[in-house]
C-alpha cells in the first residue's frame, strides 16, 4: 500500500511540475511575441477577442503535444527525472517557438500579428496559426522521439524538418485555387479551412517520413528526403483522384471580376479543399510508408 501511495504522490508532484513548466512557457512566449504582454501578464478575456484567444491557446495545445513525447524515467531517481524533463522541456519549447516564429514569418510575410489579430480580429489568421501550432508540435514531437535522447541528433533533425516544412508551405500555391494573400486580407474562412487542411496534411506526411528506424544519421536523412520527394509525387495523384471521384459544381454565373468563382470563396469550398488535402495526405502516407516490400533475396 505504501508503494502505491508513494507512486501516486510522485504522479501528483509530476503534474505540478508539468504545470510549472507550462507556466514558464507563458512567459517564454513573450520573447517571440513581445506585443502580447497583456496575454501573459493579465487575465485573458476570450469574449473580447476570439482570434487572439485561438492564437494564444493553440500554442498551449502544441506544448501539450510536445510534452507528451517526453518520458519520465523514475527508476533513475526523482530529481534526475525532473532534471531530464526540465532540460528536454526547455529545449523542446525553445525549438517549438523558434519553428513557429520561422514558419509564421514565411507564411505571414505580408501580415502583421498586431494588425491582424489585435486590431482586425482576423479569425482566418488565427485559425491558420492554430493549424501551424498543431502541425509544428506534431513535427517537433516526431523528431524528439526519433532523436533517441541525443541533443545533437535532435538539432540536426530539427533543422531538417524545418527546411522540409518551410518548403511544403510554399507548395500551397501550386495545389490550391484560392489566393492566399487576397483572401487573408478579406478574413475569408474558406481560405483558413483549405490552408489548415493542407498544412495538417503536410505535417502528417513529413512526420511519417521521419518515422522510421535509423542506425546511421546520414542514411536516415537520405531516406527521409527520398520519402519526402516520393510523397510530393504521390500526393497530387491522390488529390486529382479524389476530386475526380467527388466532383463539385462550380457556378460560373457567379464569377467575379478577377475570374475567381464566388462559390469557390465560400465556406463549402474551403471545407472541400481542406478535407481533400488531409485525406490525400493521409493516403499518401499509406503508400509511402505502409508498403512492406520484403527482402529482395527471399530464397537466397
Amino acid at each position, binding site marked *: 500500500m505504501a508503494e502505491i501511495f508513494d507512486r501516486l504522490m510522485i504522479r501528483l508532484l509530476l503534474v505540478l511540475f508539468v504545470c510549472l513548466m507550462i507556466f514558464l512557457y507563458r512567459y517564454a512566449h513573450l520573447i517571440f511575441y513581445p506585443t502580447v504582454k497583456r496575454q501573459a501578464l493579465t487575465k485573458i478575456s476570450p469574449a473580447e477577442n476570439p482570434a487572439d484567444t485561438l492564437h494564444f491557446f493553440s500554442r498551449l495545445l502544441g506544448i501539450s503535444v510536445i510534452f507528451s513525447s517526453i518520458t519520465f524515467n523514475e527508476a533513475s531517481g526523482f530529481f534526475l527525472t525532473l532534471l531530464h524533463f526540465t532540460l528536454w522541456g526547455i529545449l523542446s519549447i525553445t525549438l517549438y517557438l523558434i519553428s513557429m516564429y520561422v514558419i509564421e514569418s514565411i507564411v505571414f510575410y505580408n501580415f502583421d500579428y498586431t494588425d491582424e489579430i489585435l486590431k482586425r480580429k482576423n479569425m482566418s489568421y488565427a485559425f491558420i496559426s492554430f493549424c501551424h501550432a498543431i502541425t509544428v508540435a506534431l513535427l517537433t514531437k516526431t523528431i524528439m522521439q526519433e532523436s533517441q535522447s541525443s541533443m545533437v541528433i535532435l538539432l540536426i533533425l530539427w533543422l531538417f524538418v524545418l527546411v522540409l516544412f518551410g518548403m511544403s508551405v510554399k507548395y500551397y500555391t*501550386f495545389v490550391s485555387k484560392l489566393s492566399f494573400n487576397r483572401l487573408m486580407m478579406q478574413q475569408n474562412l474558406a481560405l483558413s479551412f483549405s490552408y489548415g487542411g493542407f498544412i495538417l496534411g503536410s505535417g502528417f506526411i513529413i512526420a511519417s517520413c521521419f518515422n522510421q528506424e535509423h542506425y546511421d544519421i546520414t*542514411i536516415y536523412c*537520405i531516406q527521409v*528526403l*527520398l520519402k519526402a*520527394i*516520393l510523397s*510530393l*509525387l504521390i500526393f*497530387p495523384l491522390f488529390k486529382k483522384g479524389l476530386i475526380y471521384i467527388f466532383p463539385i459544381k462550380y457556378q460560373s454565373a457567379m464569377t467575379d471580376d478577377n475570374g475567381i468563382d464566388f462559390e469557390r470563396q465560400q465556406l463549402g469550398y474551403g471545407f472541400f479543399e481542406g478535407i481533400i488535402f488531409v485525406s490525400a495526405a493521409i493516403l499518401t502516407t499509406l503508400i509511402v510508408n505502409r508498403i512492406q516490400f520484403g527482402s*529482395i*533475396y*527471399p*530464397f*537466397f
Partner: protein
Amino acid sequence: MYKFFLYSMLLFLYLGLAKFLSPSEMGIDYLQNEKTFSKLISGNHATAILTDTHATGFLIKTFYQKYRIISGLTVEDRIFRTSKEFAKKNLTHIGLALYAKNSEIETTTPSLPGMIYVDDREYGYWKERKNGQIVWVFNKTYKHYPKYLGWGKYRPDELTFQKFRSHLLTGEAFLGLNNEFGPEGSITKKYFPQFFKVERKKKINLQTMMVQFFKENF
C-alpha cells in the same frame, strides 16, 4: 504545362536519387552476360558455379543469380544482378561452372564444375582405382575442392576429361557423361539443393491461398 514539367522533373529527381542512394543498388555487381565475368572475378585460377537463380518484382522483374566462386583456397558465395536474357539462358545451367580460368584457359562454356583443375599437376593427380578406372584426385592442399565444387564422392575419369575438352572446342554445355550435373543431374540436386527445394516449385492455387490467408488472419 508548367505543372506537368515540374512533376516530370520531380519524378526524374526521385528516380535518379533513389537509384544512386538505394541500398539494393549498392554492393551488388551487375553481370550483364558471360563476358562480364572476367571483370567481376579476380584471381588467375577461378571457377564460378551457378547455384541459384531468382527473379523479383511484380511488373518489372529484376534477376539475380547466386554463384559459388572458388579462387585458390578461398570460397565465397556471391549474388549478382543480371540481365533477363542471361538469367533465362542459364536456367538450364544450375550447378554448372559458367566461368572458369587458369593460366592457360579462360572459358564461359557451361560445364561440369572444377574440370578446369583436372589434369593440372598443381592441383592433383590421376589415380588408378581397384576396378582399373583412372580418376582425378586432388592433392592434400586442395582436398576440400570436391566439397566446394559439389562433387561429393564423384570423381571425373579420363573419358570425362576428354569429353570436357571437346565441349570446350564446340562451346556446348557439358553436364557429365551421364548428365550427373545440371538441373536434372542427381549430383547437383544433392549438393546444391537450394534451387530444387519443394516449396520453390510448388504452385499455389487460389483456394489454398485463400484458406491459408484466412487461417493466418482470423
